[in-house]
C-alpha cells in the first residue's frame, strides 16, 4: 500500500500529469482512425519517447495513449460502425444500432464510464493479486488452451445471428482467412498463391478495416442517401448522458465485463477479444431486454467495453511478473520497457518497485483523465454524425487506406483490404453477420495451433485431451454448453408434452 502511495506521489507531479494528459489526448485522436488501434499507436509514438530521459514519464504517457486509443476505437465503432481493432468489434454490434436510433450519447457515455469502472477495478486487482494470478495462468498448457478455445467458440454462438447457415458461413470465411499464410508450426505456406504478402497471412487489422470501414461505405453507397442527421433522443438524467434507466441497466454489465476481462487478459494467449465477445453473449443471454438486442441494447455496449478495458490490467499481470506479453499492445510495451533497460519478470517488483508502482498509479490517473476528457467530448463526437454523408464516407475511405498503408507500406495489403471490403459489402446485402468472421480469424488459428502443439508434445496421442483434469473439465463444459439449450426440449419430449411452453436455455436463436 505504501508502495502504491509513493507511486501516486511520483505520478502526480505536474510534469507527469502533463504526460498523461498528452497521452490520453493523442491516443484518443489517433485511435479514432480506422485500423489504428492501441498497439499501433504506441508503436508509432515509441520513438518520441526515446528523447525522454525518465522512463516513468514515458510509461505514464503509454498508459494514457493506451486508454485513449482504446476509447477512440470504441467511439468510431459506435458512431460509424467502423471498429479500429478487434477488441471493439463486439461494441459495434449494439453500439452502432444505438447511434442509428439517436442514442449515440448514451452509448458513448456507458462506454466511457464502463471503461473507467472496469479500468479502476481491474487495476486494483492488478496491484493486489498479480503474483498468484500469474502463476495460475502459466499452469495452462497447450491442451488446456485448445479446450478453452473450443469452449469460447461454443459459448459465443449467439454472434451467429438469425440464420445458422449464414452465421456458420461467416465463421467459415473467418476460419479460412485465419489459415492463409505460413503455418506457424512448420513453416509451410497455405493459400498464398505465390504472393509474399499473403505468406504472412491476412492481418486482423486488414480484415477489420476491409470488412467494416470499406464494406460499410460501399453498402452506404448502394443504399443511397440517408437522412444525414439522426434525431437525438435526449437522455435526461444525470448530467444529460445517461438516464436513470441507463444506469440501472449498465452497472451490472460493467461489473460482469470486468470479471471476464481481467482473467482472460492474464492468460498467456488470452487477449482482449475473447472476453468482449463472451461478455456480449452473456449479456444478450441474461438481459431482461433480449428483444432489444440487435436494435441497440445498452447492455451490449456496457459489457464488452468494460471487458475490453479490464483485460488490459489482466494483460499486465503476466507482462510485469513474468515478462510474457499476451497481446499486441503488451508486446509493444515490452519493447518500450527494454528501451529503458527495464526487464519485466519475477524480480521487477523487487528491483524497480518505483517504476512498477508508478506505472500502476499511472493507470489509475490515466483512467480518471480519460473520463474527464471524454465525457465533455461526447457532444463533439456525436456531432460527427452531422457531417454530410458523402464527405464523411469519403473521409473514412481515405483514413482506412491510410491506416493500412501506413502500417505496411504495401499497396498489395491495401488491395487485400479492399477485396475484403467487397466481401463485406455482399455480406451486408445478403444479411450475413460480420462478427463471426472476426471470431473465426481469432479463434481458428488459436485452436489449430494449440491442438497441434498439444499433439506434438503428447507424441501424437489424442488422449492428451482427456488425461489432464483441467483440459477434460473445460472440454466437458464445452459439451455441456453445446447441448444445454436442447435439454429442456428433450426433457419435455421425454415426458410427452412437447407442446407445453418451456423456458428454453438458449445461447443461439435459430429461425
Amino acid at each position, binding site marked *: 500500500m505504501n508502495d502504491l502511495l509513493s507511486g501516486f506521489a511520483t505520478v502526480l507531479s505536474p510534469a507527469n500529469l502533463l504526460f498523461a494528459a498528452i497521452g490520453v489526448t493523442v491516443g484518443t485522436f489517433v485511435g479514432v482512425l480506422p485500423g489504428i488501434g492501441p498497439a499501433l499507436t504506441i508503436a508509432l509514438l515509441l520513438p518520441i519517447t526515446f528523447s525522454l530521459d525518465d522512463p516513468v514519464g514515458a510509461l505514464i504517457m503509454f498508459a494514457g495513449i493506451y486508454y485513449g486509443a482504446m476509447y477512440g476505437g470504441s467511439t468510431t465503432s459506435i458512431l460509424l460502425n467502423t471498429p479500429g481493432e478487434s477488441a471493439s468489434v463486439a461494441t459495434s454490434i449494439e453500439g452502432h444500432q444505438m447511434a442509428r436510433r439517436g442514442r449515440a450519447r448514451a452509448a458513448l457515455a456507458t462506454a466511457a464510464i464502463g471503461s473507467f469502472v472496469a479500468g479502476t477495478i481491474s487495476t486494483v486487482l492488478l496491484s493486489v493479486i498479480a503474483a498468484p494470478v500469474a502463476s495460475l495462468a502459466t499452469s495452462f498448457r497447450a491442451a488446456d488452451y485448445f479446450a478453452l478455445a473450443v469452449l469460447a467458440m461454443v459459448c459465443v454462438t449467439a454472434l451467429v445471428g438469425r440464420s445458422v447457415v449464414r452465421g456458420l458461413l461467416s465463421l467459415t470465411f473467418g476460419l479460412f482467412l485465419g489459415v492463409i499464410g505460413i503455418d506457424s508450426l512448420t513453416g509451410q505456406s497455405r493459400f498464398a498463391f505465390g504472393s509474399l504478402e499473403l505468406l504472412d497471412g491476412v492481418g486482423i487489422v486488414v480484415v477489420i478495416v476491409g470488412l467494416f470501414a470499406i464494406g460499410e461505405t460501399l453498402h452506404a453507397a448502394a443504399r443511397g442517401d440517408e437522412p444525414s442527421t439522426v434525431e437525438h433522443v435526449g437522455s435526461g438524467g444525470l448530467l444529460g448522458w445517461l438516464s436513470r434507466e441507463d444506469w440501472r441497466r449498465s452497472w451490472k454489465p460493467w461489473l460482469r465485463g470486468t470479471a471476464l476481462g481481467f482473467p482472460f487478459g492474464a492468460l498467456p494467449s488470452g487477449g482482449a477479444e475473447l472476453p468482449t465477445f463472451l461478455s456480449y453473449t452473456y449479456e444478450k443471454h441474461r438481459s431482461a431486454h433480449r428483444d432489444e438486442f440487435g436494435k441497440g441494447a445498452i447492455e451490449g455496449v456496457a459489457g464488452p467495453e468494460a471487458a475490453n478495458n479490464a483485460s488490459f490490467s489482466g494483460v499486465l499481470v503476466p507482462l510485469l511478473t513474468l515478462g510474457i506479453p499476451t497481446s499486441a499492445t503488451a508486446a509493444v510495451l515490452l519493447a518500450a520497457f527494454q528501451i529503458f533497460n527495464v*526487464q519485466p519478470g519475477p524480480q521487477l517488483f523487487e528491483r524497480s518497485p518505483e517504476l512498477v508502482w508508478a506505472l500502476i498509479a499511472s493507470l489509475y490517473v490515466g483512467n480518471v483523465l480519460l473520463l474527464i476528457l471524454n465525457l465533455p467530448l461526447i457532444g463533439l463526437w456525436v456531432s460527427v454524425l452531422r457531417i454530410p454523408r458523402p464527405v464523411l464516407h469519403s473521409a473514412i475511405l481515405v483514413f482506412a487506406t491510410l491506416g493500412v498503408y501506413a502500417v505496411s507500406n504495401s499497396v498489395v495489403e491495401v488491395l487485400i483490404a479492399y477485396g475484403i471490403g467487397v466481401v463485406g459489402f455482399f455480406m451486408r446485402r445478403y444479411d450475413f453477420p460480420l462478427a463471426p468472421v472476426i471470431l473465426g480469424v481469432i479463434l481458428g488459428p488459436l485452436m489449430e495451433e494449440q491442438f497441434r502443439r498439444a499433439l*506434438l508434445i503428447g507424441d501424437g496421442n489424442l488422449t492428451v485431451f482427456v488425461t489432464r483434469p483441467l483440459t477434460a473439465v473445460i472440454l466437458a463444459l464445452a459439451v455441456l454448453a453445446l447441448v444445454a439449450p436442447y435439454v429442456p426440449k428433450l426433457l419435455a419430449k421425454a415426458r410427452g408434452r412437447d407442446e407445453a411452453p418451456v423456458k428454453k436455455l438458449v445461447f443461439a436463436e435459430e429461425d
Partner: protein
Amino acid sequence: MRRTAAVLVAGVVLGSVAACGDSGNDSAKADTVAYPTRTLQIMAPAGAGGGWDLTARTIQKTLKDAGIVKEAVEVTNVTGAAGTVGLAQLATKHRGDAHQLMITGLVMVGGIVTNKSAVDLAQTTPIATLTAEEEVIVVPAASPHQNLKDLVAAFRADPASVKWGGGSAGGTDQILVGLLAKAAGVDPKKMKYVAYSGGGETKAGLLSGDLTAAVSGASEFKDLVAAGKVRALAVSGAKGVDVGGGSPVPTIKDNGFDVELLNWRGIVAPPGIKAGERAAVVALLDKLHTSPQWQEAMKQQGWSDFYRSGDAAKAFYDSESARIRAVLVEAGVVS
C-alpha cells in the same frame, strides 16, 4: 576472426571491388562519391517496435546526433514474411538507389529459405553487419538435466522425448536446435520442435511444463534465470556469458558440440548501385560504428558489437546463407 574482418574493412574502404556483380561498374578504382546527397531512407522490413525497427531507428538517431549526415534520415516499415516482402521491394522498386538502405539479419536468411523467396540476400549489395545477440538454451528449474551434456544425452537416446521450444519455424531458435542435433549425431528430422510466436509464448510453454527445453535470445530469459525459475544450460556464442544467474554460462562448444550461432543484424543496399556509391555507404557505416553515440546506444540496448563491413560483410552473408539453408533442409523445414 574479428581481426581479419577489420583488415578487410580497411581494404574495402580504399577501393571497393565490384561485389555487386550486375551493376556493370565502369571503374575498378572507384572514388568515394559525395553521399548522401538527399534524404536517406532506411527500411526496417518488419513492424514498428521490433528488433529491426529498433536498429533502424537507432541508426537514424545516431546519424543525426553524431552529426554524420546533414540530410534528413527517414525510417520506413515494410512488414511481412520474415522481411522477405521488404527484400523484394528493395530488389525491384529501389534497384540502383543508393539512398535506400535496408536492415537485415539472420531471421531474414532463414525466411528466404522457408518462404522460397524469389529474391535472396546475394542479390543485394551487402554493406555491413552491425550487432549480434547470443542464443541461450534453458530448462525449468525442476528439470533433471543439469547441463547441456545431460540434455543432449537424453536427446540422443530418444530424440522424441525432448520437446524443444522456441520462435517461429525456420527462425534462429530452430536453426540452433537443428545445428545442435547435427553436431550430436541426431537426425534433425527426428527432433520435436514446438514453434511459438515469440519469446513470451515460449516462456509460458516452458513454465507450464509443455516443453523440456527452450531456446531464445539470451536477454529473453534473464529475469527468470535470475529468479531461479529456469536454468541456463548453454549459450551459443564464442565465449560464455552471464545470462542472469550471476556467473558466465558455458558455451555449446564448451559442452563438446561444435556449434556456434549468433542472431546478427546488418544493413544492405539495393542491387545495381555504383561501386563509388557502395564505397561511400560503407564509409558512412564505418563512421557510424566508430562514433561514441553508436557505442553508447549499443550498450544501452544490450547489443554486442558484430561489425564487419564491405567485402567481409559480403563473405559473411554468403557463408551464413549457405549454412542456414543446409540445416533447414536437413531439418525438413524445407524440401
